């Protein structure tokens, strides 16, 4: 088994607002092995993008809490100061393809120049070296190299998305965070993109965190699946078991709401809405919508490690019954 590349412990990211702190990432812990892909799934507003931002330290100004450790390749990068983080980690070792980034390419700069710029600045490559590298990554993502001379508006959405992925790969990072890379794309374009990512995963052994609310597409790439609900990671499971045998009642309901093309299944929805992340309930955050809830659920559940390696935050699975949280 490959070594652990990323080890996130008790990561918290709260945003300051007038009504109180938004607990967007609340005490999230997980490990990710080199060469694996983790899919982070969950409904809109559950904290997926915030988790990515917390790992990459891409923070807005209104932060009220930012704590925990992010151990990357053996080092706690949370301890780095901003200068060191920017120089040694962001983009060069951990790159991100932000949500809707294909629309954020600079329209008046040719693709090649946009891809080369960070290589010249961060990696201190010569123009010649940068150009060679840019050509390489363009081939990796399956774009014809003559497109490098074009402007973003001359490319289709799918091609622009590949260009942003090429940009993230240019520095040869060990970890790439993809935030909803395909949800704005057509079905066929999306499938082609997943093929490209799969090829990169196999051939370059890149580690990915794939953020998406589309579980079907996630299954194309994911070795592990993490489910977020109201700022918390309530399940972390191997993809091999997750789709059929998820542990957390929320994960089970989520899977039951995903329509399938090849199988006749009865779809279900989860009545109600997730809680506000400002002053969320003290106990299990899913309790108000959970059919399995019992007395204990009014206390915050522990994270339990199960025999199959999965972790789950739910009293049904905690055989010790002890309350470990205040």
């Amino acid at each position, binding site marked *: 088994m490959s070594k652990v590349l990323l080890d996130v412990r008790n990561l918290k990211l709260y945003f300051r607002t007038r009504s109180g702190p938004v607990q967007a990432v609340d005490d999230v812990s997980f490990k990710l092995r080199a060469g694996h892909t983790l899919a982070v799934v969950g*409904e*809109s507003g559950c904290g997926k993008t915030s988790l990515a931002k917390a790992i990459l330290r891409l923070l807005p100004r209104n932060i009220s809490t930012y704590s925990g450790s992010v151990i990357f390749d053996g080092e706690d990068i949370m301890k780095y100061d901003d200068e060191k983080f920017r120089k040694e980690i962001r983009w060069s070792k951990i790159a991100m393809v932000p949500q809707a980034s294909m629309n954020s390419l600079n329209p008046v700069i040719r693709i090649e120049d946009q891809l080369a710029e960070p290589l010249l600045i961060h990696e201190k490559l010569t123009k010649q070296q940068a150009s060679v590298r840019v050509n390489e990554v363009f081939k990796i993502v399956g774009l014809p190299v003559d497109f490098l001379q074009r402007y973003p508006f001359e490319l*289709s*959405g*799918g091609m622009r998305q590949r260009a942003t992925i090429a940009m993230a790969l240019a520095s040869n990072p060990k970890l790439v965070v993809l935030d909803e890379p395909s949800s704005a794309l*057509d*079905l*066929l374009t*999306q*499938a*082609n993109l*997943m*093929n490209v990512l*799969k*090829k990169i995963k196999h051939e370059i052994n890149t580690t990915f965190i794939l953020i998406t*609310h589309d*579980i*079907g*597409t*996630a*299954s*194309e*790439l*994911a*070795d592990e699946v993490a489910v977020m609900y109201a700022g918390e990671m309530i399940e972390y499971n191997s*993809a*091999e*078991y*997750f*789709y059929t045998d998820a542990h957390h009642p929320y994960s089970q*309901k*989520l*899977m039951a*709401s*995903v*329509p*399938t*093309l*090849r*199988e*006749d299944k*009865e*779809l*279900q*929805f*989860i*009545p109600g*809405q997730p809680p506000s992340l400002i002053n969320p309930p003290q106990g299990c955050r899913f309790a108000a919508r959970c059919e399995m809830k019992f007395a204990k659920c009014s206390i915050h559940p522990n994270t339990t490690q199960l025999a199959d390696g999965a972790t789950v935050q739910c009293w049904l699975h905690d055989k010790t019954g002890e309350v470990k949280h205040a």
Partner: protein
Amino acid sequence: MPSLAVKLPQEQPKEQKPILRVENLHTWFEVRRMGFFKAGDVRALDGVTFDLYEGETVSIVGESGCGKSTLAKTILGINIPTKGAIYFEDQDLSTLDKQGWRNYRSSIGYIQQDPYGALPPFMSVQRILEEPMKINGIRNKEEQARRIRQVLEEVKLAPIEDFLPKFPHMLSGGQQQRLVIARAMILEPKMLIADEPVSMLDASVRVEILQLLQGLQTKHNLAIIYITHDLSTVRYFSERIFSMYGAKIIEKSSTSALLKEPLHPYTQALFEATSDPDAENLKTFKNVPAGEPPSLMNPPKGCRFHPRCSQIIKGLCDEHIPPEFQVHEEHIAACWLYKDHQ
């Protein structure tokens, strides 16, 4: 337990009446260079023919830009057809006068794509629902209140009194979409056109909204055109499916037949491209055509899918437009592979 049971396609009763007939419909948009010289036409709809029966649900699937919304807007009279005809309850729309158009429009509910742009931000829920009634001459306050109560109950925005004064930004995405549906139903339409009504929503809310639409369909015997790019929701919703590519309908089928065996290579590719959650997906690459959808200003000669088609018959597909072939009783494909079925 709330659930969306799989809807079995009903046998099409042969003497059923079409509520809508669309014949050889073309909608072209003129493109001008420098605001003056005509550069050409975007053929957003290029020869579309079909019938929709009373109380029937038809799904239209296809990639971005293939003309789905243009079809919806042309039926609604928002876009003007370049050629072809639309009949609603046997009435040719091109013969309608102003009052006729008003009556026609009020008998069709429309859920436009992009729910966030659909709701006026400075109107309360109550005003949003009153507006279409005012425009259509329903001025009796009691009647207005009765209808508002009924539609809000139907879309489950309850307690009603809490929602009436709210503004759209105070509603969740799912609630906004329910309000859009309520507005589409307020004039008690016979037909509903729903353009991507769930694509912006989370999985669970999606199921909730589809179930709601299904409930309205049954209760009011609505005819529904459901437009989507997501094949996997279709099986839960419609009796028939039309597949569109490059401004044309290239496959028409009962839902069950299409799900069993998609015939057109494009529909087959849509199938292949759709991922059901399955750990096995990790192990295989998807066999989908590369390339882009065709330009609608300069569409390819012959079959519009031929530049991307792996089953192309050279000399035929790239030269001649394939007509519709009746392959099975409820299954039509516009593809030369089926040329022996006539």
